């Protein structure tokens, strides 16, 4: 399976994701330039973290209009796997591929720390190597991760099991104290209804090697590869 990591001006986790997918997981991976308009030949696109266009105005707002985005949107709408991490998640929201919006962290400061996440739904291409309810440790690093949706959409997300990760305590309890940024319902990651577009604030590429303090992120990437290979075998 072939991964494409999109490089926007100001992306700064592009090389980290590339390293995790290529050197750690041993998967074929290419950089895709924001100015290109074609994504054919790729099986999964990753929108990495960083500060695209400086995150000036709103995080992800300007990147959403990059020349490559129409191709990304087509790819996503036709069922291709898309993973947005941190700034990538913000871009997916701005592009309307996922519902909701990001506000500044309620503490009004940037936060870099390890967080515990409860896996709310493991029946996805991105989380199938986790157990439902499993607590995983993945770091965050953002200033605008305070996820917002209105009540009606939130109910819809819940009903469709689109909430994938929630910030929680070490024991898996979803409490206000475990919420690092004020996001609605402690939401850390959501998926679209069809289940092929995941957006998450935490950085799985930062915990894909034990040297860096954890390997839960590696499991997330490995889930994608497993899912893909199973699909291939079944001829899907």
């Amino acid at each position: 399976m072939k991964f494409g990591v999109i490089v926007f001006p100001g992306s700064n986790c592009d090389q980290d994701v590339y390293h995790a997918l290529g050197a750690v997981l041993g998967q074929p991976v290419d950089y895709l330039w924001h100015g290109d308009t074609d994504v054919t030949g790729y099986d999964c696109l990753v929108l990495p973290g960083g500060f695209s266009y400086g995150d000036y105005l709103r995080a992800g707002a300007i990147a959403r209009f990059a020349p490559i985005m129409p191709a990304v949107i087509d790819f996503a709408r036709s069922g291709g796997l898309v993973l947005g991490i941190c700034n990538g998640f913000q871009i997916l929201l701005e592009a309307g591929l996922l519902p909701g919006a990001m506000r500044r962290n309620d503490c009004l400061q940037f936060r870099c720390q390890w967080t515990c996440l409860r896996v709310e739904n493991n029946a996805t291409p991105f989380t199938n190597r986790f157990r439902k309810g499993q607590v995983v440790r993945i770091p965050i690093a953002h200033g605008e991760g305070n996820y917002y949706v209105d009540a009606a959409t939130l109910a819809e997300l819940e009903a469709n099991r689109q909430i994938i990760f929630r910030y929680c305590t070490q024991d898996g309890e979803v409490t206000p104290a475990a919420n690092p940024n004020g996001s609605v319902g402690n939401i850390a990651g959501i998926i679209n209804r069809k289940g092929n577009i995941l957006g998450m604030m935490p950085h799985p590429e930062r915990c894909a090697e034990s040297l860096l303090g954890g390997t839960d992120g590696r499991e997330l990437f490995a889930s994608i590869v497993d899912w893909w290979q199973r699909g291939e075998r079944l001829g899907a």
Partner: protein
Amino acid sequence: MLLAKIYVTLKPGVLDPQGEAVMGGLKAMGYEGVTAVRVGKYLEVQLDLDDPEKAGQQVEEMCRRLLANPVIEQYRYTLEEPAGAGGKA
């Protein structure tokens, strides 16, 4: 030349942590009379257009597509001739 003055604010129901922090700060400084603070954005966009109607359309579109996020924000704007351009700004 036209100057668009654009105001982007959070929708009424959306919590504004920055506004709350500013209010807290003002109260701590002794301004007890402050009862609410909302923080938004103010943009000035200069346009090389003379037709106010066309400019208005463009500004409306810019706001909708880029300058405001309709999920959490609302906007309004005014159009005027830039000061110094003989306008009445």
